[in-house]
């Protein structure tokens, strides 16, 4: 079932009628069975968007469709969604088992499917055990949430959300408290379950690697406004604006002012790259991995004086000045350079992005 969001806006009115636009005119379609990542910095409206989809917040304006059904006015209990809250919201007085079983015990449709009470209990038990195994908490079923670590609580919350096989699964940073290994394992598991069941899923995160690795599409948000909706790789390769370019990528893109003059972009006084752009000033971004050390001295290269060098695994991290901006490059380690050297760089065109002064991407340059 696809999710269509049309012109969705949510404003909160705080003290002294100060308004916060948490979600601003959001229009997007999430195809059926897709896993979509909602990515953006803290406070950009990710959780609010999720709460709107869940029905826990009433939109100020706009509409939400699940499939062909307009669910904008539908209360959360009728939307058939699973939601993992950012801070879990487990029921503290219930055991882990009861937490996971709770939605099944309430579900009308489940009651319809399993009319006999005894058979229903057995079915619930089987689902709870099975789900617990998926998120590796089968040892913890008798515990109360307070007796669990943060990561364990998070997995209980995931189990509770997926146990009832919702039509739409909403995850609000479901992996933020797990250690690196468990995080990768659980996100692969979420991906696997999601693909096996075909549940349309929205996955909130501010970890870009997480978003890149398991999602079909990424929605990048900032201050309630959508910046880009695209395939994960596309947001990296073709960032729609300066914000997306800066937000994605680790280490971050080097962004600075550059002048176009006579068909060349000028970097550190040299003609660094050919361009078709009219003369003027532009914002130029270079991904750290797009610098190539070269022996050439002519056009298409530029000078830089290495001010800092460190070894990161197989690569060197070097830092230097570009047009007054302290920049960073990752280069392969078989190059002999040391701090204080002046070197010559060429650039990979695919790692270079140009934006106008408003921050909008310039497609052809």
């Amino acid at each position, binding site marked *: 079932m696809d999710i269509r969001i049309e012109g969705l806006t949510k404003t909160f009115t705080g003290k002294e009628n100060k308004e916060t636009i948490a979600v601003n005119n959001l229009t997007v379609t999430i195809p059926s069975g897709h896993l979509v990542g909602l990515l953006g910095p803290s406070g950009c409206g990710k959780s609010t968007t999720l709460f709107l989809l*869940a*029905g*826990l917040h009433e939109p100020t304006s706009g509409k939400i469709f699940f499939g062909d059904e307009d669910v904008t006015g539908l*209360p*959360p*209990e009728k939307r058939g*969604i*699973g*939601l993992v*809250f950012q*801070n879990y*919201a*487990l*029921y*503290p*007085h*219930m055991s882990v088992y009861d937490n996971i079983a*709770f*939605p099944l015990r*309430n*579900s*009308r449709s489940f009651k319809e499917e399993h009319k006999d009470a005894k058979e229903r209990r057995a079915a619930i038990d089987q689902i709870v055990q099975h789900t617990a195994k998926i998120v590796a908490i089968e040892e913890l079923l008798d515990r109360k949430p307070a007796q669990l670590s943060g990561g364990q609580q998070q997995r209980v919350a995931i189990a*509770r959300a997926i146990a*009832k096989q919702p039509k739409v699964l909403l995850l609000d940073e479901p992996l933020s408290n797990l250690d690196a290994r468990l995080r990768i394992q659980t996100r692969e598991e979420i991906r696997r379950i999601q693909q096996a069941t075909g549940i349309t899923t929205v996955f909130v995160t501010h970890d870009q690697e997480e978003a890149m690795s398991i999602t079909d599409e990424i929605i990048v948000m900032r201050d309630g406004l959508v910046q880009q909706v695209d395939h994960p790789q596309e947001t990296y390769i073709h960032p729609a604006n300066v914000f997306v370019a800066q937000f994605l990528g680790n280490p971050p893109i080097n962004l600075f002012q550059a002048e176009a003059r006579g068909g060349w972009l000028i970097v550190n006084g040299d003609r660094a790259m050919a361009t078709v752009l009219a003369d003027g000033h532009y914002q130029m971004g270079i991904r750290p991995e797009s610098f190539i050390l070269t022996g050439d001295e002519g056009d298409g290269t530029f000078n830089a004086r290495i001010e800092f060098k460190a070894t990161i695994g197989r690569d060197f991290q070097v830092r230097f000045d570009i047009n007054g901006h302290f920049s960073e490059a990752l280069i392969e380690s078989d190059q002999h350079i040391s701090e204080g050297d002046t070197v010559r760089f060429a650039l990979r065109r695919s790692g270079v992005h140009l934006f106008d002064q408003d921050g909008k991407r310039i497609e052809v340059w």
Partner: protein
Amino acid sequence: MVGQNQKKTFFRAMLYLLPALVIIAVFVVYPMFHTLRMSVYEDFNIFSKEGSGFGLSSYIWVLQDPNFHKALANTFIYAIVTVPVSIALSLVIAILLNSGIKGSKFFQTAYFLPYVTNAIAIGLAFRFIFHSEFGIFNKFLGLFGIDAIQWLNDPDWAMFTLCIFGIWSALAFKIVIFLAGLQGIDPQLYQAARIDEAGKWKQFIKITVPQLGPILAYQFVIATIGAFKAYVEVVGLFGDDGPLHSATTMVYYMYDKFYNANRYTIAAASGVIMFLIIMVFTFIQMHMSNRRADQ
């Protein structure tokens, strides 16, 4: 505190506790022992503080007194009726007030007023409300063609009237406590419950009640003790113990025996019996709520 001179710590603690200990000793411990001592004599001179006729005769007298039976029965009825009803009612009102309905701020204050108002004054107000001729209660019933009820003057109605008054006057404190408890529940739990398709009633049973568990237990214990000690409500409403002693309670009985009849040993013996009853009930309730908490 680690490594500090233990003796010094002890003395300092004692110094801080001393005022409280002195007050407790003078006003609680001493009277308790004094009462216990009075109760085991047949006769007692409260001025010379000497008793005569050592033995359990006062207890036997109390336990055989039909008035005491009446007081005991009334007290139990009062407790059994007012405790659950007032708790249920105050919980409902607290939930309504907490749901942010219009004017809830005003009502929160309004419901607290009886608590800070003198019980005798409220009793006087209720005397008027229950007045057989002019009271609004009977006026209201009259609208439905129901004959005037002698709320305060008919021995058969006296306990009923007392219970209504008792429930009403117990509400304020309970509502305030419940409101505090409800405000302590994480609202996200209700959001999660809605996602999990729990209706309003399910949310109440599965989230509100368990979350209020300790507060409910506390309310039950306090309310039961309070009901067993009912006295001000009786005097406030009737001025005495109702028509033909029909609304007498254990504490009223004790008071009456002490101040009106000057039967000090009888009063003391009934006081000790009451103390034992309250203690047993409190223990049972604590035990039950502890067991529930362990589950």
